[in-house]
């Protein structure tokens, strides 16, 4: 610790250079934060709650419907604790570009299945009593400035009412929050009984099922039992864990992990070059001083530590500022206007980022530190 002043002094020797290097490290970590948030947005909708939930869909593809009568058959399968269903409504509010999801659900079953959706008790009650009632997530409610009691018209692209109209009206009876940070609060949910009675065509058919397995049962085995139950029927099913379902969805977009890793690779390689170069330059300029330090009794280990500490201090300082700035910038939310509802900088990536900046400091400092350590006193003093 007593050398901290010395290290600090060395960094201040050329302020412009230190500040510029620091800033490029900051930028690298801001970029890292953005990429983590994007990756989170594209792959992240997997919650702990989802671990014992399965998604059951039509075997051929998710756009094909399943009979509502499957619910009773699923409830009888050993290991199944609860069953509920959702259906893709494909609605538009005002502008097709302002996309958000709206699905008809059975309110009680749905809320019990998804404890991560927080709805005040009186709003839940109101939903159960209002046939045309709908609940909407906080983000969408704020986006469109919807209040409880509002009537909202939604144009469905798929479902028409019995009178042939595609325009549906719902009463907002509740606004829900997410219990966890990665709970999506952009969707709207309305009542299946109202939907099923009012729609023309498709009566008694639903999009997909969510199944909660009993705590003692194994999800993979239950999934097999569900698929076996409906094998050779005209609606065969495919059942998978909710996490696997969400990740498969993300993989449809492309191999996001690979793309993110390659961009980060390019960035860190560049920063490594710039920082490494700066540090070795400043070590070279100080050859005489370092020789002097050795002459007055600094050991090899101390020399190594001195230079490494300098590079690490620079990297960690830059890293912490960068991660902090990324945290602030990403907390404003989705930069694309609605396409990435789960956009935030996850805590585990912040920790990984911190580890990365320490590593950056060590790697960039290593070569110059070795140079300093191997310095021969006589040679270096001759240069003065």
């Amino acid at each position, binding site marked *: 610790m007593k050398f901290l002043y010395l290290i600090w002094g060395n960094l201040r020797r050329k302020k412009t250079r230190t500040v510029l290097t620091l*800033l490029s490290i900051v930028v690298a970590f801001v970029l890292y934060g953005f990429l983590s948030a994007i990756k989170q947005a594209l792959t992240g909708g997997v919650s702990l709650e989802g671990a014992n939930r399965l998604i059951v869909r039509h075997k051929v*593809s998710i756009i*094909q419907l399943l009979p509502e009568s499957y619910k009773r058959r699923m409830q009888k399968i050993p290991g199944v604790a609860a069953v509920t269903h959702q259906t893709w409504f494909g609605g538009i509010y005002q502008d097709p570009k302002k996309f958000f999801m709206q699905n008809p659900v059975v309110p009680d079953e749905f809320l019990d299945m998804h404890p991560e959706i927080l709805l005040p008790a009186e709003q839940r009650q109101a939903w159960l009593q209002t046939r045309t009632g709908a609940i909407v997530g906080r983000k969408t409610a704020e986006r469109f400035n919807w209040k409880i009691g509002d009537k909202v018209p939604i144009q469905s692209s798929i479902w028409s009412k019995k009178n042939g109209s595609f325009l549906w009206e719902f009463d907002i009876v509740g606004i829900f929050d997410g219990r966890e940070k990665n709970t999506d609060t952009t969707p709207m949910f309305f009542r299946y009984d109202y939907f099923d009675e009012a729609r023309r065509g498709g009566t008694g058919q639903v999009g997909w099922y969510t199944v909660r397995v009993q705590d003692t049962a194994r999800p993979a085995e239950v999934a097999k039992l569900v698929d076996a139950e409906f094998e050779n029927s005209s609606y065969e099913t495919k059942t998978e864990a909710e996490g696997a379902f969400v990740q498969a969805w993300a993989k*449809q977009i492309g191999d996001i992990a690979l793309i993110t890793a390659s961009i980060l690779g390019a960035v860190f390689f560049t920063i490594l070059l710039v920082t490494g170069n*700066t540090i070795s330059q400043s070590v070279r300029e100080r050859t005489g001083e370092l020789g002097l330090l050795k002459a007055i009794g600094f050991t090899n280990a101390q020399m190594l530590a001195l230079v490494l500490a300098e590079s690490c201090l620079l990297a960690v300082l830059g890293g912490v500022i960068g991660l902090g700035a990324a945290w602030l910038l990403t907390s404003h939310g989705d930069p694309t206007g609605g*396409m990435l509802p789960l956009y935030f900088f996850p805590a585990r990536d912040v920790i990984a980022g911190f580890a990365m900046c320490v590593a950056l400091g060590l790697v960039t400092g290593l070569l110059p530190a070795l140079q300093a350590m191997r310095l021969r006193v006589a040679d270096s003093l001759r240069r003065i």
Partner: protein
Amino acid sequence: MSGPVNWLSQIAAVTKFGLLSIPQRRASVAAATIGIAGVVAVLVGVLSIAAGFRRAMAASGSPDAALVLRSGADTEMVSGFLRDSTRIIADAPGVARTPEGPLASAELFVIINLPKISTGSDVNVPLRGVERAALKVREGLKVVKGRMFEWGRDEVIVGIGAAREFDGLQVGDKLKVGRYLWPVVGIFSAGGGAADSEIWSDATVLQAAYHRGDSFQSVFIKLKSPEAFNEFKDAVTTDPRINAQVFRQADYYAENSASVTRLITTLGYLIASLMAIGAVFGALNTMYSSVSARNREIATLRALGFGSGAVVASVMLESIALAILGGVVGAGLSYVAFNGFHTATMNWQSFSQVTFALAVTPELLVQGVVWATLIGAIGGLLPAIRAARQPIATALWEL
């Protein structure tokens, strides 16, 4: 000597000093140049994804090609027509006709789950049921391997992009559709358009397999001429028997690709801007050290009467030259690495895969070099000003 010539020769002299001293500063120069190359490579690389996607969608419709969907349906996925309606649409004025009948193909569009070869996970691949006119409605579509499926039989042909990206779609393979196994009998190419990502079968066969009765989702039309579009559109949209909307195919696909290209472009610029800021710091560092290494030389020249303008110009020149070098290297790298690279992504409008090739277009290359030049200019400006402002006496004192 006249003014401008003198000034130019001053710039040349100072620039020469700078360039000759590069070998002594090679590490720092290389770091800055590679940094800029990195920025340009990433920028061009990310934007080439958007350009390739847009190109695939844009290649999907000539000016005389139209598409009819149910009113209110923004994609084929959610549209629907009964056969009566599709007949009325096919017989509308403006549709091109041959002795066999109007050039109109009523089609079904569904998706099917198949494993993607690159990731091994299941993705939604579009499966399209077509009528006989389909091949004439789409320009440049031809079977490149195997043969066309026979009408009325359980056979499919596969787009060249789909065959490349998804598993089990080679000629001779059998495609599992629900409980049916349909042999793949041919591979077709649609010249890079959206149909390249699709699997095709006879519409009536697909109707039966998907319990669709006698219904379709869209009608693809070849018009008599591009100008016949309005005539056709008016006839279809005002007909009280049908409830339809009409697009030019090119507009429909452009609309379809807008959200994906916007997403990729936004993210691409965001990433590249941040990297560019980092690269500016790298360039600043390099140029500051370049200037400070030559403090005495510059001061000497100025003591001899060189103008400070010449000093600024020459430092900027050096910085921009290095940056352009980096930019060209970066653009070249990304061209070699990305251009023509085949991939597939999800079209969020239809929830199904679109295969495409990344396109590093000349515009992107130019854009990359322009970014490099800007980085170089910004990175050179402050050090140049510092060099020009340095009091001559102080700098010479260091001698």
